[in-house]
Protein backbone atom coordinates (compact mmCIF):
# COMPACT_ATOMS: atom_id res chain seq x y z
CA UNK A 1 0.00 0.00 0.00
CA UNK A 2 1.45 3.33 -0.96
CA UNK A 3 0.37 6.87 -0.93
CA UNK A 4 0.15 8.61 -4.29
CA UNK A 5 1.29 12.14 -3.84
CA UNK A 6 2.57 15.30 -5.47
CA UNK A 7 6.21 16.12 -5.87
CA UNK A 8 5.88 19.15 -3.62
CA UNK A 9 4.78 17.28 -0.53
CA UNK A 10 7.47 14.74 -1.09
CA UNK A 11 10.07 17.49 -1.36
CA UNK A 12 8.79 19.19 1.76
CA UNK A 13 8.98 16.05 3.85
CA UNK A 14 12.45 15.22 2.62
CA UNK A 15 13.78 18.78 2.84
CA UNK A 16 14.85 19.18 6.49
CA UNK A 17 16.83 15.95 6.57
CA UNK A 18 18.16 16.52 3.08
CA UNK A 19 19.43 20.03 3.82
CA UNK A 20 21.10 19.22 7.13
CA UNK A 21 22.64 16.07 5.74
CA UNK A 22 23.92 17.77 2.62
CA UNK A 23 25.39 20.69 4.52
CA UNK A 24 27.04 18.73 7.31
CA UNK A 25 27.93 15.46 5.60
CA UNK A 26 28.06 15.82 1.84
CA UNK A 27 29.70 19.22 1.66
CA UNK A 28 32.56 18.07 3.93
CA UNK A 29 33.12 15.07 1.70
CA UNK A 30 33.31 17.31 -1.36
CA UNK A 31 35.74 19.48 0.58
CA UNK A 32 37.94 16.48 1.35
CA UNK A 33 37.84 15.27 -2.23
CA UNK A 34 38.95 18.69 -3.39
CA UNK A 35 41.88 18.87 -0.96
CA UNK A 36 42.96 15.33 -1.80
CA UNK A 37 44.04 16.71 -5.19
CA UNK A 38 46.17 19.47 -3.68
CA UNK A 39 49.34 19.63 -1.61
CA UNK A 40 47.62 21.42 1.29
CA UNK A 41 49.54 21.11 4.59
CA UNK A 42 46.59 21.97 6.79
CA UNK A 43 47.42 25.63 7.28
CA UNK A 44 49.05 27.45 4.39
CA UNK A 45 47.66 28.05 0.89
CA UNK A 46 48.11 25.16 -1.45
CA UNK A 47 48.76 24.20 -5.03
CA UNK A 48 47.17 21.60 -7.27
CA UNK A 49 48.84 18.21 -7.04
CA UNK A 50 46.74 16.16 -9.43
CA UNK A 51 46.79 12.48 -8.60
CA UNK A 52 50.05 12.85 -6.66
CA UNK A 53 48.57 11.85 -3.30
CA UNK A 54 46.90 8.79 -4.80
CA UNK A 55 50.16 7.72 -6.45
CA UNK A 56 51.92 8.07 -3.10
CA UNK A 57 49.22 5.90 -1.58
CA UNK A 58 49.71 3.10 -4.11
CA UNK A 59 53.38 2.90 -3.11
CA UNK A 60 52.76 3.33 0.61
CA UNK A 61 53.33 0.01 2.40
CA UNK A 62 51.59 1.19 5.56
CA UNK A 63 48.45 1.99 3.57
CA UNK A 64 48.33 -1.59 2.31
CA UNK A 65 48.94 -2.91 5.82
CA UNK A 66 46.03 -0.82 7.05
CA UNK A 67 43.83 -2.20 4.23
CA UNK A 68 44.78 -5.76 5.15
CA UNK A 69 44.05 -5.20 8.84
CA UNK A 70 40.70 -3.59 8.05
CA UNK A 71 39.94 -6.62 5.86
CA UNK A 72 40.74 -9.01 8.72
CA UNK A 73 38.42 -7.14 11.05
CA UNK A 74 35.71 -7.06 8.39
CA UNK A 75 35.90 -10.81 7.81
CA UNK A 76 35.77 -11.64 11.51
CA UNK A 77 32.92 -9.20 12.09
CA UNK A 78 30.73 -10.57 9.31
CA UNK A 79 31.50 -14.24 9.92
CA UNK A 80 31.34 -14.21 13.71
CA UNK A 81 29.56 -11.13 14.98
CA UNK A 82 26.35 -11.43 12.92
CA UNK A 83 25.57 -15.10 13.67
CA UNK A 84 26.61 -14.75 17.29
CA UNK A 85 24.47 -11.66 17.83
CA UNK A 86 21.50 -13.35 16.17
CA UNK A 87 21.81 -16.40 18.41
CA UNK A 88 22.08 -14.28 21.54
CA UNK A 89 18.99 -12.32 20.47
CA UNK A 90 17.08 -15.59 19.93
CA UNK A 91 18.27 -16.83 23.30
CA UNK A 92 17.13 -13.66 25.05
CA UNK A 93 13.79 -13.55 23.28
CA UNK A 94 13.03 -17.10 24.38
CA UNK A 95 11.77 -17.89 27.84
CA UNK A 96 15.07 -17.54 29.65
CA UNK A 97 14.66 -16.81 33.35
CA UNK A 98 15.39 -13.16 34.09
CA UNK A 99 15.99 -12.17 30.49
CA UNK A 100 14.64 -8.69 31.21
CA UNK A 101 17.64 -8.21 33.51
CA UNK A 102 20.10 -9.78 31.10
CA UNK A 103 19.07 -7.69 28.11
CA UNK A 104 20.32 -4.30 29.35
CA UNK A 105 23.47 -5.99 30.66
CA UNK A 106 24.30 -7.55 27.31
CA UNK A 107 23.82 -4.12 25.80
CA UNK A 108 26.16 -2.49 28.33
CA UNK A 109 29.36 -2.52 26.21
CA UNK A 110 27.58 -0.57 23.47
CA UNK A 111 27.06 2.24 25.96
CA UNK A 112 30.75 2.61 26.71
CA UNK A 113 32.52 5.43 24.86
CA UNK A 114 34.76 3.94 22.14
CA UNK A 115 37.89 5.59 23.46
CA UNK A 116 37.15 4.07 26.86
CA UNK A 117 36.66 0.64 25.31
CA UNK A 118 40.26 0.79 24.15
CA UNK A 119 41.45 1.95 27.55
CA UNK A 120 39.65 -0.90 29.33
CA UNK A 121 40.98 -3.54 26.97
CA UNK A 122 44.59 -2.42 27.32
CA UNK A 123 44.39 -3.59 30.90
CA UNK A 124 43.07 -6.94 29.68
CA UNK A 125 45.24 -7.61 26.65
CA UNK A 126 48.55 -6.14 27.74
CA UNK A 127 51.00 -9.06 27.67
CA UNK A 128 52.54 -8.10 31.00
CA UNK A 129 49.93 -6.45 33.21
CA UNK A 130 46.79 -7.63 31.39
CA UNK A 131 43.99 -9.71 32.85
CA UNK A 132 43.92 -12.18 29.93
CA UNK A 133 47.41 -13.52 30.47
CA UNK A 134 46.96 -13.46 34.24
CA UNK A 135 43.95 -15.75 33.79
CA UNK A 136 45.97 -18.00 31.49
CA UNK A 137 48.66 -18.29 34.14
CA UNK A 138 46.03 -18.94 36.80
CA UNK A 139 44.64 -21.92 34.88
CA UNK A 140 48.13 -23.22 34.27
CA UNK A 141 48.82 -22.23 30.67
CA UNK A 142 52.46 -21.22 30.51
CA UNK A 143 52.24 -19.27 27.23
CA UNK A 144 51.95 -15.51 27.45
CA UNK A 145 50.76 -14.50 23.99
CA UNK A 146 51.42 -10.96 22.83
CA UNK A 147 47.73 -10.19 22.16
CA UNK A 148 48.51 -6.63 21.24
CA UNK A 149 51.73 -4.84 20.46
CA UNK A 150 53.38 -7.78 18.72
CA UNK A 151 53.69 -8.29 15.02
CA UNK A 152 51.10 -11.05 14.54
CA UNK A 153 48.01 -11.00 16.75
CA UNK A 154 47.08 -7.31 16.99
CA UNK A 155 44.48 -7.15 14.16
CA UNK A 156 42.72 -10.24 15.48
CA UNK A 157 42.64 -8.87 19.00
CA UNK A 158 41.27 -5.58 17.69
CA UNK A 159 38.59 -7.50 15.78
CA UNK A 160 37.67 -9.33 18.97
CA UNK A 161 37.36 -6.10 20.93
CA UNK A 162 35.24 -4.66 18.11
CA UNK A 163 33.03 -7.75 18.38
CA UNK A 164 32.67 -7.17 22.12
CA UNK A 165 31.87 -3.52 21.60
CA UNK A 166 29.23 -4.08 18.91
CA UNK A 167 27.49 -7.26 20.02
CA UNK A 168 24.99 -5.66 22.40
CA UNK A 169 24.01 -3.16 19.74
CA UNK A 170 23.45 -5.76 17.03
CA UNK A 171 21.64 -8.04 19.49
CA UNK A 172 19.24 -5.19 20.22
CA UNK A 173 18.45 -4.62 16.54
CA UNK A 174 17.83 -8.36 16.05
CA UNK A 175 15.76 -8.42 19.19
CA UNK A 176 13.56 -5.59 17.92
CA UNK A 177 13.15 -7.49 14.66
CA UNK A 178 12.23 -10.71 16.47
CA UNK A 179 9.69 -8.91 18.63
CA UNK A 180 8.02 -7.46 15.55
CA UNK A 181 7.48 -10.89 14.05
CA UNK A 182 3.84 -11.93 14.07
CA UNK A 183 3.38 -14.10 17.15
CA UNK A 184 0.99 -16.56 15.50
CA UNK A 185 3.67 -17.71 13.06
CA UNK A 186 5.90 -18.84 15.90
CA UNK A 187 3.04 -20.42 17.82
CA UNK A 188 1.75 -22.22 14.75
CA UNK A 189 5.14 -23.71 13.97
CA UNK A 190 5.60 -24.85 17.58
CA UNK A 191 2.26 -26.65 17.39
CA UNK A 192 3.32 -28.23 14.10
CA UNK A 193 6.18 -29.76 16.02
CA UNK A 194 8.93 -27.95 14.16
CA UNK A 195 12.16 -28.22 16.10
CA UNK A 196 13.62 -25.02 17.47
CA UNK A 197 16.42 -25.13 14.91
CA UNK A 198 14.12 -25.78 11.95
CA UNK A 199 11.86 -22.99 13.13
CA UNK A 200 14.83 -20.63 13.16
CA UNK A 201 16.29 -21.76 9.89
CA UNK A 202 13.14 -21.94 7.76
CA UNK A 203 10.79 -19.45 9.38
CA UNK A 204 12.57 -16.83 11.45
CA UNK A 205 15.67 -16.20 9.35
CA UNK A 206 13.77 -15.70 6.07
CA UNK A 207 11.31 -13.38 7.78
CA UNK A 208 14.16 -11.27 9.14
CA UNK A 209 15.91 -10.68 5.80
CA UNK A 210 15.57 -6.94 6.17
CA UNK A 211 16.93 -7.01 9.71
CA UNK A 212 19.86 -9.17 8.64
CA UNK A 213 20.52 -6.67 5.87
CA UNK A 214 20.46 -3.76 8.29
CA UNK A 215 22.77 -5.49 10.74
CA UNK A 216 25.24 -6.52 8.08
CA UNK A 217 25.29 -3.02 6.60
CA UNK A 218 25.86 -1.59 10.07
CA UNK A 219 28.68 -3.96 10.89
CA UNK A 220 30.32 -3.41 7.51
CA UNK A 221 30.19 0.38 7.68
CA UNK A 222 31.21 0.21 11.31
CA UNK A 223 34.38 -1.67 10.43
CA UNK A 224 35.45 1.12 8.11
CA UNK A 225 35.08 3.54 10.99
CA UNK A 226 37.07 1.63 13.61
CA UNK A 227 39.49 4.12 15.07
CA UNK A 228 39.41 4.72 18.80
CA UNK A 229 40.00 1.05 19.62
CA UNK A 230 43.22 0.94 17.66
CA UNK A 231 44.24 4.37 18.82
CA UNK A 232 43.98 3.38 22.47
CA UNK A 233 45.06 -0.26 22.24
CA UNK A 234 48.21 -0.04 20.14
CA UNK A 235 48.38 3.48 18.71
CA UNK A 236 48.72 1.65 15.37
CA UNK A 237 52.05 0.23 16.47
CA UNK A 238 54.52 -1.26 16.59
CA UNK A 239 55.81 0.55 13.51
CA UNK A 240 52.27 0.89 12.05
CA UNK A 241 51.77 -2.87 11.85
CA UNK A 242 48.37 -2.74 13.53
CA UNK A 243 47.15 0.39 11.76
CA UNK A 244 43.61 0.32 10.30
CA UNK A 245 42.46 2.67 7.55
CA UNK A 246 41.02 5.42 9.74
CA UNK A 247 43.78 5.31 12.33
CA UNK A 248 46.37 5.64 9.59
CA UNK A 249 44.44 8.50 8.06
CA UNK A 250 44.39 10.18 11.47
CA UNK A 251 48.12 9.65 11.91
CA UNK A 252 48.92 11.12 8.50
CA UNK A 253 46.58 14.08 8.90
CA UNK A 254 47.19 15.12 12.46
CA UNK A 255 50.52 13.65 13.55
CA UNK A 256 52.66 14.06 10.46
CA UNK A 257 50.63 17.04 9.17
CA UNK A 258 50.28 15.78 5.59
CA UNK A 259 46.78 17.13 5.35
CA UNK A 260 46.10 16.57 1.66
CA UNK A 261 47.46 13.02 1.77
CA UNK A 262 45.26 12.38 4.80
CA UNK A 263 42.25 13.59 2.84
CA UNK A 264 43.15 11.28 -0.06
CA UNK A 265 43.20 8.40 2.43
CA UNK A 266 39.86 9.59 3.81
CA UNK A 267 38.34 9.56 0.35
CA UNK A 268 39.45 5.96 -0.14
CA UNK A 269 38.12 4.97 3.31
CA UNK A 270 34.79 6.53 2.43
CA UNK A 271 34.62 4.91 -1.00
CA UNK A 272 35.55 1.49 0.37
CA UNK A 273 32.94 1.79 3.11
CA UNK A 274 30.24 3.08 0.75
CA UNK A 275 30.85 0.37 -1.84
CA UNK A 276 30.90 -2.35 0.81
CA UNK A 277 27.69 -1.19 2.48
CA UNK A 278 25.73 -0.50 -0.70
CA UNK A 279 26.78 -3.92 -2.02
CA UNK A 280 25.55 -5.47 1.21
CA UNK A 281 22.21 -3.68 0.98
CA UNK A 282 21.72 -4.55 -2.68
CA UNK A 283 22.62 -8.21 -2.17
CA UNK A 284 20.31 -8.43 0.83
CA UNK A 285 17.46 -6.85 -1.11
CA UNK A 286 17.94 -9.27 -4.00
CA UNK A 287 17.86 -12.18 -1.61
CA UNK A 288 14.80 -10.78 0.12
CA UNK A 289 13.06 -10.32 -3.23
CA UNK A 290 14.03 -13.76 -4.50
Amino acid sequence: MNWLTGRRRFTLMIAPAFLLYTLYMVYPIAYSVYYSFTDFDGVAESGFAGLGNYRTMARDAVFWTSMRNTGIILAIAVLLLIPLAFLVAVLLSGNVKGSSVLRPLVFAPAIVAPILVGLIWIFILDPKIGLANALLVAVGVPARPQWIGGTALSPYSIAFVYLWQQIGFIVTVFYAGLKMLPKDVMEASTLDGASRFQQLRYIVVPMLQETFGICTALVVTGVFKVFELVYALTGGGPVHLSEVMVSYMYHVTFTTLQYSYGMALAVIVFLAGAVASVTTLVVMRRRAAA
Partner: protein
Amino acid sequence: MTVKNRTRWIATGVAYLITFVILLPLLWLVLLSFQTNENILSNPFSPAHLNLANYQQAMQTLNLLVMYKNTLILALVSVPAGLVVSYLAAFALTRMVFRGGRRRVQNSVRYYFLAGLAVPVYILLFPVYRLDIAMGLFGSYAALILPYIAVSIPFNILLLTGFLREFPEEIEQAAVIDGVGLWQMAWKVVFPLMRPVIATLAILNVIYVWNEFPFAVTLINDPTMTTLSLGISQFQGAYGADYGAMMASATLVLVPQLAIYALFQRQVIAGMTAGAIR
Protein backbone atom coordinates in the same frame (compact mmCIF):
# COMPACT_ATOMS: atom_id res chain seq x y z
CA MET B 1 12.55 -33.13 34.50
CA THR B 2 10.93 -32.79 31.11
CA VAL B 3 12.95 -32.22 27.97
CA LYS B 4 11.42 -28.81 27.53
CA ASN B 5 12.37 -27.83 31.05
CA ARG B 6 15.90 -29.06 30.60
CA THR B 7 16.45 -27.05 27.41
CA ARG B 8 15.09 -24.06 29.23
CA TRP B 9 17.61 -24.45 32.02
CA ILE B 10 20.46 -24.97 29.56
CA ALA B 11 19.41 -21.88 27.63
CA THR B 12 19.27 -19.90 30.85
CA GLY B 13 22.70 -21.12 31.87
CA VAL B 14 24.20 -20.23 28.50
CA ALA B 15 22.55 -16.81 28.55
CA TYR B 16 23.97 -16.05 31.99
CA LEU B 17 27.43 -17.23 30.99
CA ILE B 18 27.45 -15.07 27.86
CA THR B 19 26.27 -12.08 29.85
CA PHE B 20 29.00 -12.60 32.41
CA VAL B 21 31.72 -12.84 29.76
CA ILE B 22 30.40 -9.68 28.13
CA LEU B 23 30.36 -7.86 31.45
CA LEU B 24 33.76 -9.01 32.68
CA PRO B 25 35.75 -6.13 31.15
CA LEU B 26 33.41 -3.61 32.75
CA LEU B 27 33.75 -5.27 36.13
CA TRP B 28 37.50 -5.09 35.69
CA LEU B 29 37.19 -1.37 34.98
CA VAL B 30 35.24 -0.81 38.20
CA LEU B 31 37.73 -2.88 40.19
CA LEU B 32 40.66 -0.92 38.77
CA SER B 33 38.97 2.37 39.62
CA PHE B 34 39.46 1.60 43.31
CA GLN B 35 43.19 1.02 42.96
CA THR B 36 45.98 3.56 43.05
CA ASN B 37 47.44 4.78 39.76
CA GLU B 38 50.73 3.10 40.69
CA ASN B 39 49.03 -0.21 41.33
CA ILE B 40 47.02 -0.13 38.10
CA LEU B 41 50.19 0.27 36.08
CA SER B 42 52.47 -2.11 37.90
CA ASN B 43 50.51 -4.65 39.90
CA PRO B 44 46.78 -4.58 39.10
CA PHE B 45 46.12 -8.03 40.57
CA SER B 46 46.62 -7.19 44.22
CA PRO B 47 43.39 -5.74 45.55
CA ALA B 48 45.11 -4.92 48.83
CA HIS B 49 44.99 -1.14 48.71
CA LEU B 50 41.46 -0.43 47.54
CA ASN B 51 40.47 3.15 48.20
CA LEU B 52 38.30 6.01 47.03
CA ALA B 53 41.09 8.47 46.22
CA ASN B 54 40.46 8.26 42.48
CA TYR B 55 36.85 9.25 42.98
CA GLN B 56 37.87 12.22 45.09
CA GLN B 57 40.34 13.25 42.41
CA ALA B 58 37.72 12.85 39.67
CA MET B 59 35.12 14.85 41.58
CA GLN B 60 37.62 17.62 42.29
CA THR B 61 38.83 18.01 38.72
CA LEU B 62 35.59 17.53 36.85
CA ASN B 63 32.59 19.78 37.12
CA LEU B 64 30.21 16.87 36.72
CA LEU B 65 27.06 18.95 37.15
CA VAL B 66 27.97 21.28 34.30
CA MET B 67 29.02 18.35 32.17
CA TYR B 68 25.75 16.52 32.76
CA LYS B 69 23.80 19.70 32.03
CA ASN B 70 25.57 20.33 28.73
CA THR B 71 25.32 16.71 27.62
CA LEU B 72 21.61 16.62 28.46
CA ILE B 73 20.91 19.82 26.53
CA LEU B 74 22.70 18.45 23.48
CA ALA B 75 20.93 15.10 23.68
CA LEU B 76 17.47 16.48 24.42
CA VAL B 77 17.55 18.82 21.44
CA SER B 78 19.46 16.87 18.83
CA VAL B 79 17.90 13.42 19.33
CA PRO B 80 14.19 14.34 18.99
CA ALA B 81 14.92 16.80 16.20
CA GLY B 82 16.99 14.17 14.39
CA LEU B 83 14.23 11.60 14.77
CA VAL B 84 11.52 13.94 13.49
CA VAL B 85 13.40 14.95 10.34
CA SER B 86 14.49 11.35 9.71
CA TYR B 87 11.00 9.96 10.19
CA LEU B 88 9.50 12.51 7.76
CA ALA B 89 12.09 11.64 5.15
CA ALA B 90 11.80 7.89 5.72
CA PHE B 91 8.03 8.04 5.45
CA ALA B 92 8.23 9.98 2.20
CA LEU B 93 10.81 7.55 0.86
CA THR B 94 8.84 4.39 1.55
CA ARG B 95 5.13 5.12 1.75
CA MET B 96 4.66 7.72 -0.99
CA VAL B 97 4.23 7.06 -4.65
CA PHE B 98 4.24 9.57 -7.48
CA ARG B 99 2.07 9.57 -10.51
CA GLY B 100 4.06 7.67 -13.09
CA GLY B 101 5.72 5.56 -10.39
CA ARG B 102 9.03 7.20 -9.75
CA ARG B 103 10.38 4.59 -7.37
CA ARG B 104 13.79 5.22 -8.81
CA VAL B 105 13.94 8.77 -7.44
CA GLN B 106 13.06 7.52 -3.99
CA ASN B 107 15.60 4.75 -4.13
CA SER B 108 18.35 7.10 -5.25
CA VAL B 109 17.55 9.56 -2.49
CA ARG B 110 17.56 6.70 0.01
CA TYR B 111 20.99 5.55 -1.12
CA TYR B 112 22.15 9.16 -1.04
CA PHE B 113 21.31 9.19 2.66
CA LEU B 114 22.67 5.70 3.31
CA ALA B 115 26.05 6.58 1.80
CA GLY B 116 26.52 8.72 4.92
CA LEU B 117 26.88 5.53 6.97
CA ALA B 118 30.33 5.08 5.49
CA VAL B 119 31.66 8.54 6.35
CA PRO B 120 34.53 8.43 8.87
CA VAL B 121 33.75 11.30 11.18
CA TYR B 122 37.33 12.57 11.20
CA ILE B 123 37.01 13.97 7.70
CA LEU B 124 34.09 16.12 8.86
CA LEU B 125 36.00 17.99 11.56
CA PHE B 126 37.72 20.73 9.56
CA PRO B 127 34.80 21.54 7.24
CA VAL B 128 32.23 21.49 10.04
CA TYR B 129 34.39 23.81 12.13
CA ARG B 130 34.52 26.24 9.21
CA LEU B 131 30.77 25.94 8.60
CA ASP B 132 30.04 26.73 12.23
CA ILE B 133 32.32 29.77 12.12
CA ALA B 134 30.80 30.94 8.84
CA MET B 135 27.26 30.67 10.19
CA GLY B 136 28.20 32.36 13.45
CA LEU B 137 27.31 29.27 15.46
CA PHE B 138 30.74 28.56 16.92
CA GLY B 139 30.65 28.56 20.70
CA SER B 140 26.93 27.77 20.89
CA TYR B 141 25.21 24.46 21.47
CA ALA B 142 23.92 24.59 17.90
CA ALA B 143 27.50 24.21 16.68
CA LEU B 144 27.32 20.64 17.97
CA ILE B 145 23.60 19.98 17.63
CA LEU B 146 23.48 20.45 13.87
CA PRO B 147 26.31 18.01 13.06
CA TYR B 148 24.92 15.52 15.62
CA ILE B 149 21.58 15.56 13.79
CA ALA B 150 23.27 15.24 10.43
CA VAL B 151 25.40 12.31 11.55
CA SER B 152 22.35 10.51 12.99
CA ILE B 153 20.30 10.83 9.80
CA PRO B 154 21.81 7.98 7.73
CA PHE B 155 21.38 5.39 10.46
CA ASN B 156 17.91 6.62 11.41
CA ILE B 157 16.82 6.42 7.79
CA LEU B 158 18.32 2.97 7.33
CA LEU B 159 16.39 1.56 10.27
CA LEU B 160 13.18 3.50 9.68
CA THR B 161 12.92 2.72 5.97
CA GLY B 162 13.68 -0.92 6.77
CA PHE B 163 10.85 -1.23 9.24
CA LEU B 164 8.46 0.96 7.24
CA ARG B 165 8.88 -1.37 4.29
CA GLU B 166 7.96 -4.38 6.38
CA PHE B 167 4.96 -2.49 7.70
CA PRO B 168 1.75 -4.28 6.72
CA GLU B 169 -0.43 -2.48 4.18
CA GLU B 170 -3.70 -3.57 5.73
CA ILE B 171 -3.51 -1.05 8.52
CA GLU B 172 -3.01 1.78 6.09
CA GLN B 173 -5.77 0.55 3.85
CA ALA B 174 -8.14 0.43 6.76
CA ALA B 175 -7.16 3.95 7.75
CA VAL B 176 -7.64 5.31 4.25
CA ILE B 177 -11.09 3.80 4.12
CA ASP B 178 -11.75 5.68 7.35
CA GLY B 179 -10.84 8.86 5.48
CA VAL B 180 -7.52 9.65 7.09
CA GLY B 181 -5.23 12.23 5.39
CA LEU B 182 -1.52 11.95 4.70
CA TRP B 183 -0.35 13.94 7.69
CA GLN B 184 -2.57 12.04 10.08
CA MET B 185 -1.51 8.82 8.43
CA ALA B 186 2.13 9.62 9.09
CA TRP B 187 1.74 10.76 12.69
CA LYS B 188 -1.45 9.25 14.04
CA VAL B 189 -1.54 5.86 12.34
CA VAL B 190 1.94 4.77 11.35
CA PHE B 191 4.09 6.59 13.91
CA PRO B 192 2.54 4.97 17.01
CA LEU B 193 3.09 1.55 15.48
CA MET B 194 6.75 2.42 14.89
CA ARG B 195 7.31 3.06 18.59
CA PRO B 196 9.71 0.18 19.17
CA VAL B 197 11.98 1.34 16.36
CA ILE B 198 11.74 4.97 17.40
CA ALA B 199 12.56 4.08 20.99
CA THR B 200 15.48 1.94 19.91
CA LEU B 201 16.78 4.76 17.74
CA ALA B 202 16.30 7.28 20.52
CA ILE B 203 18.41 5.17 22.85
CA LEU B 204 21.16 4.66 20.29
CA ASN B 205 21.21 8.34 19.36
CA VAL B 206 21.40 9.43 22.98
CA ILE B 207 24.30 7.05 23.49
CA TYR B 208 26.02 8.51 20.45
CA VAL B 209 25.68 12.07 21.75
CA TRP B 210 26.68 10.94 25.23
CA ASN B 211 29.95 9.44 24.01
CA GLU B 212 30.74 11.66 21.05
CA PHE B 213 34.35 12.82 21.34
CA PRO B 214 35.88 14.14 18.06
CA PHE B 215 33.31 16.88 17.40
CA ALA B 216 33.12 17.84 21.05
CA VAL B 217 36.85 18.21 21.41
CA THR B 218 37.10 20.26 18.21
CA LEU B 219 34.06 22.47 18.59
CA ILE B 220 34.10 23.19 22.32
CA ASN B 221 36.76 25.58 23.56
CA ASP B 222 35.01 26.90 26.60
CA PRO B 223 35.19 25.08 29.95
CA THR B 224 31.55 25.95 30.69
CA MET B 225 30.49 24.00 27.60
CA THR B 226 32.38 20.80 28.45
CA THR B 227 30.49 17.56 27.98
CA LEU B 228 30.80 14.22 29.75
CA SER B 229 32.65 12.63 26.86
CA LEU B 230 35.54 15.04 27.40
CA GLY B 231 35.87 14.08 31.04
CA ILE B 232 38.36 11.26 30.71
CA SER B 233 40.73 13.28 28.53
CA GLN B 234 41.11 15.79 31.38
CA PHE B 235 43.51 13.36 33.04
CA GLN B 236 45.72 12.97 29.99
CA GLY B 237 48.64 15.34 30.46
CA ALA B 238 51.55 15.83 28.08
CA TYR B 239 53.91 14.02 30.43
CA GLY B 240 51.58 12.14 32.69
CA ALA B 241 48.26 10.38 32.86
CA ASP B 242 46.18 9.58 35.89
CA TYR B 243 44.72 6.19 34.96
CA GLY B 244 43.07 5.80 38.34
CA ALA B 245 41.12 9.03 37.95
CA MET B 246 40.28 8.07 34.36
CA MET B 247 38.80 4.77 35.52
CA ALA B 248 36.89 6.49 38.32
CA SER B 249 35.42 9.19 36.10
CA ALA B 250 34.55 6.54 33.52
CA THR B 251 32.67 4.63 36.19
CA LEU B 252 30.96 7.82 37.34
CA VAL B 253 29.67 8.40 33.81
CA LEU B 254 28.92 4.76 32.98
CA VAL B 255 26.92 3.63 35.99
CA PRO B 256 24.18 6.29 35.75
CA GLN B 257 24.12 5.79 32.00
CA LEU B 258 23.56 2.07 32.44
CA ALA B 259 20.89 2.70 35.07
CA ILE B 260 19.06 5.11 32.79
CA TYR B 261 19.22 2.62 29.98
CA ALA B 262 17.93 -0.19 32.19
CA LEU B 263 14.99 1.98 33.23
CA PHE B 264 14.30 3.16 29.70
CA GLN B 265 14.52 -0.39 28.46
CA ARG B 266 11.28 -1.25 30.24
CA GLN B 267 9.63 1.53 28.28
CA VAL B 268 10.96 0.01 25.09
CA ILE B 269 9.52 -3.36 26.00
CA ALA B 270 6.19 -1.73 26.84
CA GLY B 271 6.29 0.03 23.50
CA MET B 272 7.05 -3.20 21.76
CA THR B 273 4.17 -5.14 23.25
CA ALA B 274 1.77 -2.29 22.61
CA GLY B 275 2.93 -1.82 19.07
CA ALA B 276 3.45 -5.42 18.11
CA ILE B 277 1.77 -6.28 14.87
CA ARG B 278 -0.29 -9.36 15.22
